[in-house]
């Protein structure tokens, strides 16, 4: 399986990361190596194998619909990099 620099750039945008030219080369290099290694899984025939997403078969962890206290607004906002009295603040969601 081949992975190009352009592919890596696309993935970086999806992952909201950004690399400079050298960083991109290095990342591409490392990813190609790792992907070549993990490709050894394709040796195995897994046609009839059920995927296993959880380590254990646990089901039905359901909680009753009973309210518990929320955090104070101060506690909710106290770690915010930018905030005002009421809200988190982020760069404009829309617009240029």
């Amino acid at each position, binding site marked *: 399986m081949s992975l190009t620099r352009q592919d890596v750039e696309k993935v970086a945008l999806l992952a909201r990361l950004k690399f400079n030219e050298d960083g991109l080369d290095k990342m591409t290099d490392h990813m190609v190596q790792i992907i070549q290694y993990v490709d050894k899984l394709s040796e195995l025939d897994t046609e009839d*194998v059920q995927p296993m997403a959880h380590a254990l078969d646990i089901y039905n962890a359901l909680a009753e619909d009973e309210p518990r206290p929320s955090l104070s607004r101060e506690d909710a906002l106290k770690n915010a990099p930018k905030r005002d009295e009421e809200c988190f603040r982020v760069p404009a969601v829309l617009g240029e």
Partner: protein
Amino acid sequence: MSIIQKTATEQLALLNSGELTSVELTQAYLNQIEQVDGQVGAFLRVETESALAQAAAIDQKRATEAPLGKLAGLPVAIKDILCTKDTPTTCGSRMLENFQPPYNATVVEKIRAADGVILGRTNMDEFAMGSSTENSAYQTTQNPWDTARIPGGSSGGAAACVSADMAPLSVGTDTGGSIRQPAALCGCVGLKPTYGRVSRYGLIAFASSLDQIGPLARTVEDTALLLEVLAGHDPLDSTSVKQPTPAYSETVKQPLENLTLGVVDRHFGAGIDPEIETAVQSAIQVYESLGATIKHIAMPHADYGIATYYIIAPCEASSNLARYDGAHYGYRTDQAEVVAELAEDGSDEGPLVRMYRKTRSEGFGEEVQRRIMLGTYALSEGYYDAFYLKALKVRRLIRQDYDAAFEEVDMIIGPVTANPAFAQGEKTSDPMAMYLEDLYTVTANLAGVAGISLPCGFTSSGLPIGLQLQAAPFQEEKLLRAAQMYQAATDFHTRRPELS
């Protein structure tokens, strides 16, 4: 013999008999940290004041003859991945440098409720991604047995502090070997419980379906004591299992009869350090001399463990770490720079996306970014089936190997690592070499089974060697008893590193 060289179990007896106070004990450890942590770098933060205050409060409680918890004044070191209310919790990352969670992890609550004294926060690979603790944004940790070498990782600080007598008990996390491998390289005991045995609530997630919190200590008995405190069902964690917690510390000294141990032949031979092979083979002979039967078992898919792990873990991590985007907490890049960039390059990328990308590229270290990239790629359109889905299927095959093995044997015995602690910087530029460090440990995480690492020898240059025992889900009690049998018959766990 100084008090800090005694085991936690011995210290607990002294505390209970009134010969020792928690303040004295805590102070002794604080002094040791003061003396040796400059060379080791196990702690990111030592919480001197609050530790002494907790110790004093517990002594006070004892004086009034109020019932005390199971730890009753014993100090505990905590990996900096567990949320502690209104206290910095960094996960070894620049991203969370100023982060103070508004809540406590369940295990932190449990340690407090058990009257444990929280000594401080131990160093780790950023977001628990690494096998050498070289990926911390803050400092490296040195192996107390040879400070030019790594302590293992990601719970490197957690293992090193126990090994250098800076804490009797320590809490780590294990996603692919992160408790067992540093325990082996630092010469202490570390246990990864069955997935679901210990609540993950408040554990900053790396790979949610693999992460598990566990104890590190110098002896099996002490490990049993701490596990007893950490384990138990938690309604706040949907993956926490409703199983009663056995009294590990009470049964740990009962030897197991008719113990059958499984040996996987391909664990030996090519690729493993001969000194490690010899030490592990001798440990197997010790078990035989204690009456255990040895059976050779096949784990046909074990060789695919690393490949499976390095798909599943990065996939989950890429999603778990999406929340670090500079919007609601943690690091955010300088807005003025974003605005300047916008003006300069005139591409159509908006200010919000720029803020995200810049924040994440500056806040995360290289290894974390690599795993986010891998996971994002493996989950993306057109690759999901070939990578992620395939890995989930092989994970099932690995689990089936374990199930078949545990039909035949009580436990699987083998090495923890192929090599002893390596030199600082030796593998930092070769991620694949670093990933292979987890060769013998990742399969337990993939299958969800329990595993323990305990000292079983030293290399000729004096580096510790670890022995791994793995048991079927929820068989920690037997695992501890089997480990204790070995420890009672050997003295590797009593040797201490020499730090000036």
